[in-house]
């Protein structure tokens, strides 16, 4: 879960990382006032989660209060990669001598945190790593042994930095390592970290991602930062349909019938489980089908949940038919899902036999499930029909 820049910096400030004066503003008047309080040239930055603000013209410099107010007005409406600005951050413009890059993330191969440091900050780090590998260091560190500043020192030194800069950078990098582990982050990045002309350091831009699974461990912090529990902070904000899907899954604690993602097609999908859904969504598209949604059922959901999910999908305008498909199931029961989707069709005022294009869930309790499907005249198949072919049958019924 991604933090806005102002939230990342609020977290950094708690840990006394060096930050210049700045204020988050929501109006031109506030921008004007912020300029006065900061007292000098400022930078105004759109608060969006996506990258590419500079390119979109959503970062501007102001030399006067009037200019700050003007820039606020021009920055706020700019949509960056489909995302509207939440607010604008006004910060003092610094006299930068050099920019550094520091980031910590997880390395799934080493299964340890990895610290990436460079004395060539401000630009794309992947590019720096290719063109100037000697200026980029990568250092893995333990997640169970006590953290030690020498790791930070070695990382800074390995990128070719020495002298006063090394001694001033080490505690900053070390603090970021501590923050990374303390808050279950999946990314803690400062870029650029600037050395000013007077030799001091300041965090110019920062970026923090917290693992969604760990949100429960950091409720107090999230509350203090004003991050709501329903903010998913995915690549795009959830649609109403997706939020309704999340409510379906919260009906009870039995199994999963959710993770709904909206698409604009005409074939509704009740699919599962994790890997099976990915496989089936691909299969539908390979046959030229247009899915109305992605979703996942699994872990033996209740009849009510499967019913509510079915009803929700059928309520979406333009959904002509439904394909109910999973990999061979062992925990989820075929008969329970069959009951749920049939009830969902009926609740939506649709005939199950007409609406369900294909039911392909083989496995646990399939004989019982198939009895139910026969009774309602729903077309079904067992494991002898592949997931791919089942998807093909569903698509064929629509076009």
């Amino acid at each position: 879960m991604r933090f806005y820049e102002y939230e990342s910096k609020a977290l950094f400030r708690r840990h006394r990382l060096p930050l210049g004066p700045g204020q988050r503003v929501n109006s031109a008047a506030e921008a004007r006032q912020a300029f006065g309080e900061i007292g000098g040239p400022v930078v105004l930055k759109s608060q969006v989660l996506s990258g590419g603000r500079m390119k979109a013209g959503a970062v501007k410099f102001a030399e006067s209060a009037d200019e700050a107010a003007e820039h606020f007005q021009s920055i706020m409406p700019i949509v960056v990669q489909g995302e509207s600005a939440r607010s604008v951050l006004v910060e003092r413009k610094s006299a930068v001598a050099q920019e550094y890059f520091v980031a910590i993330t997880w390395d799934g191969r080493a299964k340890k945190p990895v610290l990436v440091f460079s004395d060539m900050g401000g630009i794309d780090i992947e590019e720096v790593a290719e063109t100037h590998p000697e200026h980029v260091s990568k250092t893995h560190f333990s997640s169970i042994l006590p953290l030690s500043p020498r790791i930070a020192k070695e990382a800074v030194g390995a990128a070719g930095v020495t002298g006063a800069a090394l001694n001033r950078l080490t505690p900053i990098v070390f603090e970021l390592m501590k923050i990374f582990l303390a808050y279950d982050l999946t990314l803690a990045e400062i870029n650029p970290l600037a050395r000013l002309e007077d030799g001091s350091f300041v965090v110019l831009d920062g970026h923090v991602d917290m693992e969604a699974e760990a949100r429960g461990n950091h409720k107090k912090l999230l509350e203090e930062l004003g991050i709501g529990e329903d903010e998913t902070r995915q690549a795009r904000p959830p649609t109403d349909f997706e939020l309704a899907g999340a409510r379906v899954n919260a009906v009870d604690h039995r199994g999963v019938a959710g993770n709904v993602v909206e698409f604009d097609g005409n074939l509704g999908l009740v699919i599962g489980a994790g890997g099976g859904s990915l496989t089936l969504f691909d299969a539908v598209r390979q046959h030229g089908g247009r899915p109305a949604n992605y979703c996942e059922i699994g872990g033996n959901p209740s009849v009510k949940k499967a019913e509510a999910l079915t009803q929700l999908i059928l309520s979406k305008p333009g959904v002509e038919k439904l394909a109910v498909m999973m990999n061979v199931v062992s925990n989820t029961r075929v008969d329970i899902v069959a009951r749920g989707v049939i009830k969902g069709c009926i609740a939506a005022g649709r005939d199950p036999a007409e609406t369900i294009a294909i039911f392909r869930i083989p496995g646990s309790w399939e004989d019982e499930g198939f009895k139910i499907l026969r009774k309602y005249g729903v077309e079904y198949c067992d494991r002898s029909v592949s997931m791919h072919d089942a998807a093909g049958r569903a698509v064929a019924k629509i076009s």
Partner: protein
Amino acid sequence: MPGLFIDVKVDPEVAKDAGIAAKLEEVCPVGIFVAAASGVEIDEQNLDECVLCDLCIEAAPKNGVRVIKLYES
């Protein structure tokens, strides 16, 4: 709304027994039985959640509880 797939019939004599009512409420994993003051009541909302575990049939005297699969008739 009664169940679309499952119906549960409790023998009227058995239904009056408070002890059996409590037992049925306890064993059913999906909350179909409610032990009320008058004996066993059926929560129709949960009938279709029946997982066919037969625990209620085992908990009651012989033929005291019958689970009917409506999709078989």
